[in-house]
């Protein structure tokens, strides 16, 4: 019990520190504009592009929905993956690594706010898709939709945490975070079907949770019940959990390597 209480305390304080440091430099309203702008402009761009291209395999609604869910990536992959880099940059990583608290607890604690922000972004983007592009939610199964948002956010956070562990050892996790920020746009069937990718790239789609998230979101909006999308949800949960586990193991490995090479101050 003592261990759990201690972990909860670390998560709470890491989350609080993350919030305070974020809003110390940037006013909350500007941060909100940033979060919303990235998701919405991306949606506008690809919806307009689909209109320009004409006879495409995906409808405007499908593209808008795909981009609405993809908006979660900024918070769950980019922001989470940047955490070690931000610590390095501000010179606090050696302190955090040498504190008795476990590093993974601190990183997860610092991710909590971003996870909540990610879900909020998806909800705003879906509302925008309905209001501006006329995406119909008349048939939507609200429970399925909520489950898709929740499980996709969990799985993408697992992906972000896995990548963030590499940032402990690498010079900067920003490069990695930037690289994977828009990965869903190419591999996950957000704007064009996965089958349009060259066959040697399609296995990448199969291991990215967003692929299943986008598929099940479109089904949920068309009225599919939770049981109908259960396969996608289970796959996302499984992939997300595996990524979390790999991330945890990688974090321990890279933490050790960084100590041996003394690279945790290098950026």
């Amino acid at each position, binding site marked *: 019990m003592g261990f759990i209480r201690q972990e909860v305390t670390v998560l709470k304080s890491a989350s609080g520190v993350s919030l305070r440091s974020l809003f110390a*430099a*940037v*006013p909350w309203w*500007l*941060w909100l*504009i*940033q979060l919303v*702008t*990235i998701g919405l*402009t*991306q949606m*506008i*761009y*690809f919806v*307009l*592009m*689909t*209109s*320009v*291209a*004409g*006879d*495409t*395999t995906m409808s405007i609604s499908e593209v808008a929905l795909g981009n609405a869910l993809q908006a979660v990536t900024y918070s769950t992959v980019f922001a989470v993956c940047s955490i070690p880099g931000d610590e390095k940059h501000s010179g606090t990583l050696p302190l955090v690594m040498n504190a008795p608290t476990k590093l993974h607890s601190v990183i997860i604690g610092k991710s909590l706010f971003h996870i909540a922000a990610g879900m909020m972004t998806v909800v705003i983007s879906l509302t925008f898709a309905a209001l501006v592009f006329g995406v119909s939610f008349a048939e939507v199964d609200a429970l399925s939709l909520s489950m898709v948002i929740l499980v996709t956010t969990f799985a993408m956070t697992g992906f972000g945490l896995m990548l963030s562990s590499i940032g402990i050892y690498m010079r900067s996790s*920003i*490069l990695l975070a*930037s*690289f994977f*920020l*828009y990965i869903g*746009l*190419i591999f996950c069937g957000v*704007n*064009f079907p996965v089958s*349009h*990718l*060259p066959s040697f790239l399609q296995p990448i789609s199969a291991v990215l949770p967003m692929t299943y998230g986008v598929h099940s979101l479109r089904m949920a909006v068309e009225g599919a019940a939770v049981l109908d999308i259960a396969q996608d949800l289970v796959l996302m949960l499984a992939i997300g959990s595996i990524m979390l586990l790999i991330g945890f193991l990688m974090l321990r490995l890279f933490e050790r390597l960084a100590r041996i090479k003394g690279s945790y101050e290098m950026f």
Partner: protein
Amino acid sequence: MPNLYAITGSFKKQALDFIADPQWIIPSLVAPFTFTLVTLMIYPERDASIVLYAVLGGGILGMWSNSLRASGFSINYDRMVGTLESLMVTPTPLMEVIAGRAIWNALIGLLNSLLVFILAEVVFQTSIRLADPLMFFIALAIILLSLSTIGLFLAAFFVFTRASSVLTQILELPIFIISGAMIPINLMPSWSWPLSFTFGPFWGVDALQIAAGVSSTSPIPVGYAGDLLILFAITAVYLTLTWMLFKKMDGKARESGSLGRY
């Protein structure tokens, strides 16, 4: 008359910094490259004209993203590593030092165009041709200057705020839409058109499309020469605003003594 030695020297220094550590181009090119690639994938048929359109548009997006990020970060970087004070007290005006960097940053943003071009040639196997290479490169050079001026402006502007990285994220993608580089602006509501008209490279994109032989999508067709004239005029306005901003920054920094704070 600007000190061309200083501008060239700063351009060379920025190029050497890039060659020494080229990985920092990645964050600037990820968005334009992905957006250009996905744009190509959305099209059901990818003939040479579509690929040329994407290569041209992708080049502008790359130049914009790198100008925004690298030039915007330019003064902040000096501030972080402690060289800003030294730069301010040299006889060469800071604006000329940053100008050399901004030109390099816009130029290297063209790498996106090259990447898309190579991909298009290798994967999609299209062979693209420019209708008038000379007109094309003249337009490209003027766009480069215009985007460098925007980079200069952002470099000075970002000194006044601690939220420069957030502003960079906010500004990057909307310009992908309003620049008209990829999406014809007549698809946008007409109230948004003035935003495009005041963004210099919008006119440059039209000139590039005319020179490359791609049909123009501008709602106000003014022809190649007209596009370049408007681009020149807008760039001159940008330059004047930038000069005023640098003056203000210089005065404010000396008064408050807060130049090294970040």
